[in-house]
């Protein structure tokens, strides 16, 4: 899974019927320290994430493995809201909690 920060919502009235009732959030990919990377994802929200939340995104066909996203044309799902990233390796020690970034 990758780290991401929710930066917005994709609003759409006309969409694939299988996406009805599913919130599409615009997410900026970040690294394990919270530093933004130059990549973004439009992901279905399965955990009621909000703007500014640090989240985990799973992508590929396993993104369809939730009750909400199964049988729908989806390849990215937000499956967790991060409370804290604890870096234990001294060589990689970075800002402890990305949620404060």
């Amino acid at each position, binding site marked *: *899974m*990758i*780290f991401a920060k929710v930066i917005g919502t994709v609003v759409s009235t006309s969409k694939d019927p299988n996406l009805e009732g599913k919130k599409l959030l615009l997410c900026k990919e970040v*690294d*394990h320290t919270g530093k933004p*990377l130059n990549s973004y994802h439009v992901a279905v929200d*399965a*955990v*009621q994430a909000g703007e500014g939340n640090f989240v*985990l995104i*799973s*992508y*590929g*066909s*396993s*993104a*369809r*493995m*939730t009750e909400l*996203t199964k049988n729908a044309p989806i390849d990215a*799902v937000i*499956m*967790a*809201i*991060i*409370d*804290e*990233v*604890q*870096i*234990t*390796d001294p*060589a*990689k020690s970075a800002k402890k909690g990305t949620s404060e970034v």
Partner: protein
Amino acid sequence: MKLGKVIGVVWATKKVPQIHGCRLYVVQPILENGQDSGQPLVVADPKNIAAPGDRIVFVTNTDAAQAFDTGFAPVNASVVELVDDIA
């Protein structure tokens, strides 16, 4: 599959039910000689195989869901082995 080193832990209380009680590790992919190779990612550990500091083998893409008993979880990276040695 790929080799990796567990460099951290992700704490997340709010998550999809399929991964409740499953540890989520920050893993640095490594080369066979132990050098870093690419961006750290988050790897699920449904079978509690690894711990921080361990070297592991992890599986990616949809097959990562097979590491879960149900075979149904929205994950694209899972621990499958603890590496004792690379001879």
